[in-house]
């Protein structure tokens, strides 16, 4: 296993190098460079233009620029952003990365969960109303033009109904006069969510595994109490309104991302279930007199899960793609929007930095899913 991981790391580094090189070439293939915007200004004297190009290193030959960017990237300092001068790339990204991660992880998690539940249900009872409703709406949402759909969501829920804000990360009016930064509040929110997830997982699985039936019955109430206690603590903490403001801004982009991506998991689960339902061990489970729900969940769906988990990667990558569009439509200042801006203005250091993070994220997701596979399917072992 350790040897396998080390080999995977090498492969990841190589893949990342390739991604970065291709990105660099693609961005350079655009006409002009970052300084072009200023160079076209007739009021600037030629020496200033030249000096400007030299400041950004744009006067050097392309291969030298490539090597400089590569050195910066692989030594982990990424350099200074052209567009956000003089802020270092690292600082810009660290501010925006958590916002994107929250979007990705929540939307992917939600769409995977919804897709799996629906797929399981429609495969088990074929030909029902649910199957037609879920398949038609799911495929429609999956294939719809994302920006148009996102704008529709804004039009309906933010503009017409006024339930949610139109876009952005927060509402400045709410934050006026507060002495905390948005990022510190957001980090606290993330830590709370993570702690709750770990706690719920521990209650559900650690206690269950002990075979203690009394605790098993208590696990759901315990989680519910914790889930109720968290908003209470936040409301009393004084920054509750600020957190609520961020939460309100999060809802629409997450719902939109979830809606456009759940159908993939749903259809895959459905097909995979239709295979496993015919397996002999499902028949055997039924012959053993297990309740139908147990036959479906513990045997048919559990085995149907295996190919679906592989697709988790694709839905993650789909979410990353989607996030560039969705973040732009909702003006959500995350990595996706940053990347789009940086590419358009040829802010090379920022492009490289954003690509490194997005690339690392998807490569790591691959490794995580591969490792997850070992736990899901006992037949798989890595040497």
């Amino acid at each position, binding site marked *: 296993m350790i040897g396998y991981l080390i080999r995977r790391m090498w492969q990841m580094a190589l893949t990342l190098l390739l991604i970065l090189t291709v990105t660099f070439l693609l961005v350079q293939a655009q006409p002009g460079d970052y300084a072009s915007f200023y160079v076209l200004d007739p009021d600037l004297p030629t020496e200033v233009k030249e000096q400007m190009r030299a400041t950004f290193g744009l006067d050097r030959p392309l291969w030298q620029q490539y090597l400089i960017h590569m050195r910066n990237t692989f030594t982990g300092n990424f350099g200074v952003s052209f567009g956000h001068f003089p802020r270092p790339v690292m600082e810009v990204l660290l501010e925006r990365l958590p916002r994107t991660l929250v979007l990705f992880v929540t939307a992917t998690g939600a769409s995977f969960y919804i897709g799996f539940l629906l797929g399981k249900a429609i495969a088990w009872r074929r030909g029902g109303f649910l199957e037609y409703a879920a398949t038609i709406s799911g495929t429609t949402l999956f294939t719809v033009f994302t920006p148009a759909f996102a704008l529709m969501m804004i039009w309906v829920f933010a503009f017409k109904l006024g339930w949610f804000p139109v876009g952005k990360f927060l509402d400045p009016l709410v934050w006026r006069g507060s002495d905390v930064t948005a990022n510190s509040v957001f980090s606290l929110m993330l830590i709370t969510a993570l702690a709750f997830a770990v706690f719920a997982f521990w209650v559900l699985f650690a206690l269950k595994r002990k075979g203690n039936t009394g605790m098993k019955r208590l696990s759901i109430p315990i989680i519910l109490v914790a889930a109720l206690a968290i908003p209470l603590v936040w409301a009393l903490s004084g920054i509750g309104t600020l957190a609520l403001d961020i939460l309100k801004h999060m809802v629409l982009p997450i719902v939109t991302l979830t809606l456009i991506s759940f159908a993939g998991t749903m259809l895959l689960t459905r097909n995979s279930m239709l295979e496993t339902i015919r397996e002999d061990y499902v028949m*055997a489970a039924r*012959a053993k007199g297990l*309740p139908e729900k147990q036959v479906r969940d513990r045997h048919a769906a559990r085995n149907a899960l295996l190919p679906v988990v592989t697709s988790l990667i694709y839905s993650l990558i789909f979410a990353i793609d989607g996030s560039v569009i969705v973040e732009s439509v909702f003006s959500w200042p995350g990595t996706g929007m940053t990347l789009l801006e940086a590419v358009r203005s040829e802010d090379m250091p920022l492009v490289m930095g954003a690509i490194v993070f997005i690339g690392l994220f998807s490569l790591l997701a691959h490794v995580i899913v591969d490792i997850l596979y070992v736990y899901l*399917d006992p037949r798989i072992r890595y040497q």
Partner: protein
Amino acid sequence: MSVAQTDPVLKVTDLTLRYSTRQGEVKAVEEVSFELAKGQSLGLVGESGCGKTSVANSLMRLLPDNARLVKGQVWLNGEDLLSLSDEEVRRFRWRRIAMVFQAAMNSLDPVYKVGQQVIEAIETHGVETTIDDAEERVARLFRLVGLDPQLMERYPHEFSGGMRQRAIIAMALSCDPDVIIADEPTTALDVIVQDRILRELKSIQQELRMSVIYITHDMAVVAEVTDRIGVMYAGRLVEFGNTADVFRAPMHPYTAALMSSFPSVSGERRPLGSLSGEPPNLLDPPLGCAFHPRCAYATEVCRRESPPQVSRGQQWAACWHPLDGQTSSTGNHDAY
């Protein structure tokens, strides 16, 4: 083999099953009736597609959606299984009738430990109260079927074919059922493992005084392990009797043909017979006796009218021209 005095554990009367398909209605099982006493073993034999597995699945009430039970009753210890609600059937499965599956290779769920899958059945039916007791029980069962109890912690893919079959047998025994149905229990195994498992199954059956139904097309299996034999053809039971009697002197020409197509190791040398033709299409079975197109003894009456049931001691056959045992061209050899 005087087992007929006790009350039957299982009594099947006039079981008739149809499958509706796009081509029409398949008459899979037609008026099958038999009894099984405690501690007795019955072999249901016949070619593929003659309705053996459909009978077994009816006993478990594990039928596909397009199956329809037209008539008949299945009495298990005086309780009519076919009138139970789905939930009652669920509780009753495995606890009262368990099954050793046709495809033992794939009957274990690949993602759970083998022991856990046996415990699952025990937990569902509440046979033992605690996990420790259940584990102890599984260990005992594993020892009974000749598996190391340590193997409980292994996954199915780590088992060989024979080990899986043993695990399935242990699983079938786990809730002390009244009847075990063994559907082609050893088809996928090599002959040596097959023989050992059959012998063990037989000794377990005798030790625990269980009733077992073997479903097979292999006459050798039937000869080795069963007390009674039922020969099926085209969804009907065509001959029934004590295994020894049937092997000594089959009454139905089909039984005789089946037996002549299997070699006998200890018997006299003889050419192997083969039965030409195919089993009839159950969408539209032949009139009269379903076997008449392939039967050497068929006459006009066989083509027109259903055959009567002819008895000889405890043995009976549904035939217009039953063989009397002496003139049979293929009888007179002992398969043991």
